[in-house]
């Protein structure tokens, strides 16, 4: 294997357009051992014999799609990486390619050959960093890309919505395409950006986060792109921009919706050309940065109001992850709350703290308009007030009402909840369902004396589901393990 790694990286190029094939080959041949194929069948045969590091595959080929080739490559050369290239990209196609294991998905035209070279270099690095990579027929390499012990930020939750987010992160991590993360304030957009960085080939390169809304309009261009000495009053020395600082890695542009219009134009140019021109400079230079942008702004409205450029929006969003609000994934609250309590209590040197039933009930009943950030603040607040080992409902901030179980009416009836039009429909509906479920389960456990088997028989809910539901609502049953 070490002998294989010491050779020049081997790159296959497959394109039925002869001019493209010839020119890609010639450009890449300066740094790699290049094999070129105009014919999909010939390429497939060659993949079975060649020991490849990277394959650059045209998506559209006669008789076989690039995706067919990709799946063949993954089968016969699991250690190799694939870069898909097309002039006719759609989001579905990109997702399908990344889902099928492509390292990157590039859209023609690529004006700067240097940029392509960098992408291929990254793919080679990725292929060579895999344990057992490059060994033709090494069937273990595909699973080696996922280390159970890696230090990626954890996206906590058990809901199907958060499962989907985790799956998208997994699929998108290895791409270099721009990615847009949307979600309400406090939903964890930066955490997702960090997870994308940590899970991809750029993990050993910088991750730089910048809040576009926190930098004065007059400074943001200089911060992002750098400036030359004397570019403007006060520019006493040359200043390196964040794009240069993030070269080879990831630049996370938070609150992108707050970016001033003139900066949007410059950012668009960087995304289109992969080149940065510092303020006051006459020359551009190439950078290789994956841009991940985040926003809580309604882009459609911002574009309609002329506050955000439509072309920039499409450049930023070939890949997109929408984060659900916490109120739309209530089942995640207990697990997130416990995780946050663990983190805060470690920081405070008071490990081993738990929530009382009433505290957890209050936490799961509150809609959390500020999402996880607000939940985190509330837990930190309660931790500071508490002195014992158990956090109680009374120690939570006053805006988090005590559990409805403790209110004068034991359980809000569906009708009562439905007529509460002070909250949005989706929330009223979720509240009603949750209250109904809690009320039903409490009554069920009361009439069955907390016997899980009897309750399961009576309700027609299977035991494991019933156990899960009871745990979610913190309702005791016989045989439940003590927390």
């Amino acid at each position, binding site marked *: 294997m070490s002998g294989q790694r010491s050779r020049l990286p081997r790159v296959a190029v497959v394109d039925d357009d002869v001019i493209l094939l010839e*020119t890609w080959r*010639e450009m890449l041949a300066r740094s790699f051992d290049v094999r070129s194929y105009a014919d999909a069948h010939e390429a497939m045969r060659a993949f079975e014999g060649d020991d490849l590091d990277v394959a650059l595959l045209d*998506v559209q080929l*006669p008789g*076989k799609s690039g995706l067919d080739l990709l799946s063949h490559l993954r089968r016969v050369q699991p250690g190799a990486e694939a870069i898909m290239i097309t*002039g006719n990209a759609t989001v579905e196609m990109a997702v399908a390619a990344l889902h099928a294991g492509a390292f990157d998905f590039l859209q023609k035209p690529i004006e700067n050959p240097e940029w392509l070279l960098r992408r291929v270099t990254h793919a080679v690095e990725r292929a060579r960093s895999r344990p057992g990579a490059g060994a033709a027929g090494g069937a273990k390499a595909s699973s080696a890309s996922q280390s159970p012990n890696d230090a990626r930020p954890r996206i906590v939750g058990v809901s199907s919505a958060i499962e989907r987010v985790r799956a998208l992160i997994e699929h998108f991590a290895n791409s270099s395409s721009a990615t847009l993360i949307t979600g309400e304030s406090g939903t964890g957009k930066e955490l997702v950006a960090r997870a994308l960085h940590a899970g991809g080939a750029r993990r050993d390169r910088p991750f730089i986060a910048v809040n576009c809304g926190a930098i004065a309009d007059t400074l943001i261009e200089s911060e992002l792109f750098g400036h030359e000495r004397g570019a403007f009053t006060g520019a006493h020395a040359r200043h390196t921009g964040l794009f240069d600082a993030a070269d080879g890695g990831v630049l996370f542009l938070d609150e992108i919706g707050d970016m001033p219009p003139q900066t949007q134009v410059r950012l668009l140019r960087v995304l289109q050309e992969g080149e940065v021109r510092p303020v006051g400079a006459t020359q551009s230079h190439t950078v290789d940065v994956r841009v991940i942008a985040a926003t809580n702004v309604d882009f459609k409205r911002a574009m309609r109001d002329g506050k955000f450029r439509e072309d920039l929006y499409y450049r930023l969003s070939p890949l997109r992850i929408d984060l659900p609000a916490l109120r739309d994934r209530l089942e995640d609250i207990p697990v997130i709350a416990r995780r946050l309590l663990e983190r805060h209590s470690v920081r405070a040197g008071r490990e081993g703290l738990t929530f009382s039933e009433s505290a957890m009930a209050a936490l799961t009943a509150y809609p959390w308009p500020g999402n996880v950030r607000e939940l985190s603040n509330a837990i930190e607040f309660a931790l500071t007030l508490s002195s014992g080992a158990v956090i109680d409902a009374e120690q939570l901030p006053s805006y988090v009402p005590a559990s409805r179980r403790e209110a004068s009416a034991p359980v809000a009836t569906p009708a009562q909840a439905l007529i509460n039009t002070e909250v949005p429909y989706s929330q009223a509906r979720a509240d009603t369902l949750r209250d109904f479920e809690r009320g039903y389960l409490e009554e069920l456990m009361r009439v069955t004396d907390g016997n899980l088997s009897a309750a399961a028989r009576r309700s027609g809910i299977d035991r494991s589901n019933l156990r899960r539901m009871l745990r979610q609502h913190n309702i005791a049953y016989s045989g439940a393990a003590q927390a």
Partner: protein
Amino acid sequence: MWTRLVAGAAAHDINNLAQGLSNLLALASSPTANRESLDRYASLARDGLKDLRQLATNLRSLANAQSGAETQRLDLLAVDVVTELGALGTMGDRAVDVSAPADAGALVEGPGPALRLAIQSLVRYGVAASAPLARVAVSVAREERNVVLVVSAPTAPSPRTTAEAELGALLGGAEREFGGDAGLVFAGASAHLLGGRATAGPAPGGGGLQFKLSLPRAEEAQREGAGDVRTT
């Protein structure tokens, strides 16, 4: 639908050419470029220009597909097209067998360029999609009201093309079968403009792909016993 498909296919081909020329420009500007490599880049650029002219010709053929009412023999056109493709060296190591017994009744109406574009595109795709050393079969036969040209290509079976279907539906569907290939788009659009249809499906026996170009018979011309009116 065809407008969208033709526009998309033309944009794709132009984009590829732009990319190719841009690559050549970058290579030619490199300080390491020598006389020999510059000659090669110039030759590739000439090929690019030829492709661009061909694209313009194809688009013009489509634009004029409904102008004039020439009568053509599809069997003879098929033989011509295959011979020309062979002479152009586009077959590589594949071969094309034409089975089109002379049939004075295989008459269709339409301008020669549009008809040739349809036939040529289907044969080209069949050849390109076939395995090395494969033999692509082209046949022409009369049916009750149509003249039908069939191109059978021994390709790997496509899991997405399991039954005969309109080419337009396959090319423009969610699966984007055949990758929106420009040649097939031109073939389908041409058939549509000539009052016929182009379909794709599995070859009988499951041995690959089969394209069919069905065009209405030129009854009027047939009655007059028109002979060989090929346009080349």
